[in-house]
């Protein structure tokens, strides 16, 4: 198969060497950025508040993943605008200073569970210095609702 041919071996080598360069470059910029981290608090579904730091330019979904925050089912489509599971609720003043909202995000928000007037998708909101100290709320999930629907009978499912 051509995958094992010399040509593709070359591709791999060339790519690897360049990745190395770029990766080093990224590490460098990341180190620079770490001084400028933005603090964000998430209020989880159970009301618990978790405060973490994220880099400017990262989306709130990136922050949730990088900080390994345990929010069940969050960001199922990995930020590709195919679902609305990274739905977050903002305070009104914060919501008003967030960047513009695209048609595609609005379409997905229409399908979000527990939608509010200050809802956005976490994958579309990127951190900036001006968002320092914001608090965002994770809406109740469908799973929570279902759990209470079933009562105790189905807790084993």
């Amino acid at each position: 198969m051509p995958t094992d041919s010399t040509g593709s071996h070359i591709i791999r080598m060339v790519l690897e060497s360049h990745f190395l360069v770029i990766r080093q470059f990224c590490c460098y910029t990341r180190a620079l950025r770490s001084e400028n981290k933005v603090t964000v608090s998430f209020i989880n579904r159970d009301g618990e508040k978790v405060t973490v730091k994220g880099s400017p330019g990262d989306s709130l979904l990136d922050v949730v993943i990088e900080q390994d925050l345990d929010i069940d089912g969050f960001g199922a489509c990995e930020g590709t605008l195919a679902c609305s599971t990274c739905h977050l609720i903002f305070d009104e003043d914060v919501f008003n200073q967030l960047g513009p909202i695209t048609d595609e995000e609005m379409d997905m928000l229409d399908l979000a569970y527990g939608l509010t007037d200050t809802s956005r998708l976490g994958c579309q909101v990127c951190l900036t210095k001006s968002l320092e100290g914001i608090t965002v709320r994770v809406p109740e999930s469908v799973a929570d609702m279902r759990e209470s629907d079933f009562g105790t009978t189905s807790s084993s499912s």
Partner: protein
Amino acid sequence: MALLKKMRHLHLRILPVTAENRHFLLRTRGFHKHSTCQSLPAVEENVLPGNFSAAAVGKDGPLKTLKDMAGPSTISNIIEFFFRDGFSRIHEIQQQHSQKYGRIFKSRFGPQLVVSIADRDMIAEVLRAEGVAPQRANMESWKEYRDMRGRATGLISAEGEDWLKMRSVLRQQIMRPRDVAVFADDISGVVTDLVARVRALRGRQPDGLTVLNVNDLFFKYAMEGISVVLYEQRLGCLEERIPQLSLEYIAALHLMFSSFKTSMYAGAIPKWLRPLIPKPWEEFCHSWDGLFKFSKVHVDRRLSEIQGQLAAGQEVKGGLLTCLLVTKELTLEEIYANMTEMLLAGVDTTSFTLSWSTYLLALHPQVQQQIYEEVVSTLGPDKVPVSEDLPRLPLIRGLVKETLRLFPVLPGNGRITQKNLAVGGYLIPAGTQLALCHYTTSLDEGSFPNAAQFLPQRWVRKDATDRVDNFGSIPFGYGIRSCVGRRIAELEMHLALTQLIQKFHIQVSPLTEEVRAKTHGLLTPGAPINVRFVDRQ
């Protein structure tokens, strides 16, 4: 340096994948927890699953079982489908049954029990409860062909972890609107050819205006458009003389489509009966051979180009296919399979929707005028639209959404439940085949007032907090198993319709009577749509 620059471009597209790898691993870990989709036992409708042995309780009291669910009898289904050609009216039968039996009902097709859901809120519940690798339907026959030929499965035919791995790679390339916007220039080039082709074809008719069977033209447009994205190459489908290889592919695609019913039987006919009724399976394999061959030729061509460029020390530039070949996140066989399945999924779907759009525009001159005015006030009479223009053309977006609401190209979609589910007061056991009745919900008055009317305006938002749609019309599906080509298809349709409306006044041809929808796997125009393209200037 140039190579580095290019690699950086590639890398910029790849980097998120590496960043997501951890995410992916986390998900796969989760996946093992709910990996219930493999070889589920056949669902017995009167048996409660083990962990529901006590009466299960829903929010409105005890849950009913499938045994309590209403639905047409097996006999009436057989008569409807086999003796009254119900297959071509599945969308209408869906509506009739939901009126008769309720918004959730069961049907039997031989041994197969199907629970149909024709209610937007229940559909939302089902889709929101999905696990990490939802399953659409039984894809055994597809898988059997691939095993037989030593081929891999692609996004349509793969399940479980195989599917999740491929989806994770492909969605990072072609699902984000900003990534897809990169293809706009290439697609615009195809639109230019489409417009030229309209002029050439109408010139052959006595009135100098009519394009006969416009779907044939849109089929070629859609094939050319998706190939530019998938294979990074023009195929010449819109030229006067279509290259032989592309003609062969079109023939294979037509065979796959025309034998759709047969290929359903190919899966339904038990293996031991095949010697007696060999044709469906043979045709099924034959058309797949054609589709795979085409993909293999184009993928191999690109691979050898890349190898040649690297050997000569040239920079490697490219899009989706190049990226897949270079990064090797998918094996070569997986690339063949996904290119094949994405091409298969991306041609008829787009062309039918474009055909219906032009038909609806022709039937509704006032609506067309309104959209024309929006296009001209945004672009002027001549400017070729680019992807940045599209947010300023809300009626074009509304046109596509409204077309897909009235004629959802997939009138119903499938899901196999992966865990026990409480929906509509019923307990649906894991392993049940669900049919989500999109045709019925998208024509529901409760969700869409004046549902039978063609009103693209209904999708235009007053402002960013104006909520317009809901689960009633989700033509591309929702969630992680939704249409992977959605953004590409939207781009192709938005760019084509904008230019067609900008350049032509689209009118119904006297040759066309009322065209009704027919189900043939997809929701298709039941008769040729002939339209007149009259120059605007």
